[in-house]
């Protein structure tokens, strides 16, 4: 699917936010930033407290019963017909593409299809549904963008992240060599096949650094953890953060509401 073939909904008044377990534990500020970016568009954001994990780790490891058990709980989180926004292409892809398969032939099939049909990745939602417009409040900076494979392929968000960044006057976005190549995360792959994963992430870090960026923004926390973690371990001058956090820090100056 191409981003252009997708039919985005009208901008809604309310959305659900599915934070993902990595954001929950390691990058909650990215989650808060994502929520604020949505609120900035005049949308009321609901964060169901009963959310846990989309089930993907078990799913891709082949343990589909266990994945289904966890996914079943998530099916009950979104009773209203509002869009579900996810700050991750990978977990978004799980909801959007794998839930229907996981629940196919079960009593939950219809619910899974309904949820799949209204799940969107955060940056595509901000750009295409909200029509977000940003004025840069930050100092000049050079960054690279890392779009996860699942955001690009499964969620087909196209260049949404790049177009959001392009609105920021003081931000120079560099292009890396082989930008579309996987960073080598792949969930349990990183620990099951550590040497292959390391070869991949090391190439990724090198090409970002060679492009002249000292920091990068990522649409997914898995890749972020992998790339930034490798750079830190090997002493390469590269810091990373989630794209939501990066964007929010650049635009928040204009919308200080006293709580941020």
């Amino acid at each position, binding site marked *: 699917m191409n981003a252009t073939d997708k039919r985005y909904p009208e901008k809604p008044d309310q959305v659900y936010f599915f934070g993902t377990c990595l954001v929950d534990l*390691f990058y909650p500020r990215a989650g808060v930033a994502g929520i604020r970016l949505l609120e900035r568009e005049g949308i009321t954001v609901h964060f169901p407290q009963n959310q846990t994990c989309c089930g993907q780790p078990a799913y891709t490891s082949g343990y589909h019963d266990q994945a289904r058990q966890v996914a079943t709980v998530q099916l009950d989180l979104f009773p209203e017909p509002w869009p579900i926004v996810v700050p991750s292409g990978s977990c978004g892809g799980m909801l959007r593409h794998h839930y229907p398969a996981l629940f196919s032939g079960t009593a939950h099939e219809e619910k899974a299809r309904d949820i799949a049909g209204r799940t969107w990745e955060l940056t595509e939602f901000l750009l295409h549904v909200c029509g977000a417009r940003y004025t840069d409040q930050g100092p000049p900076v050079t960054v690279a963008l890392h779009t996860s494979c699942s955001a690009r392929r499964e969620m087909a968000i196209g260049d949404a992240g790049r177009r959001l960044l392009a609105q920021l006057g003081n931000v120079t976005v560099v292009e890396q060599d082989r930008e579309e190549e996987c960073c080598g995360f792949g969930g349990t792959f990183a620990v099951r096949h550590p040497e292959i994963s390391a070869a991949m992430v090391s190439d990724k870090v090198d090409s970002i650094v060679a492009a002249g960026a000292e920091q990068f923004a990522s649409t997914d926390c898995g890749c972020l953890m992998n790339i930034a973690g490798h750079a830190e*371990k090997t002493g390469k001058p590269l810091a990373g953060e989630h794209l939501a956090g990066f964007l929010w820090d650049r635009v928040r100056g204009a919308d200080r509401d006293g709580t941020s």
Partner: protein
Amino acid sequence: MSATQTPVQAFHRRVHDAIHDARIRANFRSAMDGLMSKRRTAFADWDLERLRELGAAIRQRALTRLPDLLEELERNCQANGIRVHWAETDEEACHIILDICRAHDARQVIKGKSMVSEEMELNHFLQQHGIQALESDLGEYIVQLAGETPSHIIMPAIHKNTGEISELMHEKTGTEPSRDVDYLTAAARSQLRERFMQADVGISGVNFAVAETGTLCLVENEGNGRLTTTVPPVHIAVTGIEKVVERLEDVAPLLSLLTRSATGQHITTYFNMISGPRRDGELDGPQEVHLVLVDSGRSGIYQDDELLETLRCIRCGACMNHCPVYTRVGGHAYGTTYPGPIGKILMPHLLGLEATSELPSASTLCGACGDVCPVKIPIPRLLVRLRREAVEGDGQHPGMVAGHGVKRRRWEVAIWRLWSWLHARPGLYRAGIAAATRFRWLQPRRLGAWTRYRTAPRLAPRSLHALMKARASGGNPR
């Protein structure tokens, strides 16, 4: 490789060696970069999506009617004077070919490129029975000189650079060392030309077997395929049963997809359509043409609609060219006839999961392969399916693939059960992460293989759940 290694250990050993071999890394990286850019250019003016849809539909239609089409193919081949043989196993196929060779007192066989014959280890088998088989495809010729196996299904010697090839040819054939590719090619050609004339039998593969007309299509660039199938008095074509297509008109779109996906060519230098032995009054062509159709595990795949998609493959190699794992480890690390993504989804069917259980897991599921596959095989989905087959296969989930359940370990099942138990109980989950973030100073600095190459991610002081809860009750979500 020591005999006591398990297939899993052997795989990791080969990967380790390849990753640390600078030459392998450099050769594959530059070759794959080149192939990717050629493919991009070749499809630049095409509605690639539509063409892929068409290619997928043609192949799927052929597979859905596979038993019928194979019978039709047999009938029409026979009507054309092609003798058709069926082999259930590699061994059977080897024996069929041996028998044909013996019937003609063959001592020397010349071969065009055939991956199925690699599957069967045909050269080795013939050698054991006193028949010399010489590879005539340049890449295969080099691989044979080196005593190796192909590292890529389209470019068998892609793991070697020009310098290595020159050294090898110098050592084995006395060719003057040179970095000039044309010179080396010419040298190999002149050595091969002789052998074509002497060969008693020519053996080739098949790219598409057309049921409607009983035609065998062969795609190649060097002319060696044409010589193999026309100069010796006997031609044996050997192929997997899945290579059949229904109609002649199906060939054109598949050919367009194949050559562009494989090498970025609009068309190959040679495209052979073989429709039988030499007829009365014709000046050339073999006196006998045989077709050996090999099953070797393929019909097992046929039982399952999802797995069946594996057989759509037209062997273009694009999935490996675009695979970030293949690019890093090269073809030999896989240890199987077909490397790369297609190997990971095909080999478990041909060899069983006991020998191949590590292959489906050696992927990030990045999806590059599925994206470029000209017949839209959902490779990542099939990888997940095979991962499932590798851990399932108890009473509740009868496995489909031979060796299913081979990776099922009690402790691993227990971990996933615990994981799902916790994540299916939101209250407990929240309590768990509250504790984890609160006592985050207890977080180990080392996390096995993860922290060998990366620092550990740091637990946040407060989870998103906690921040949002505080915010809902009027707090400050820092």
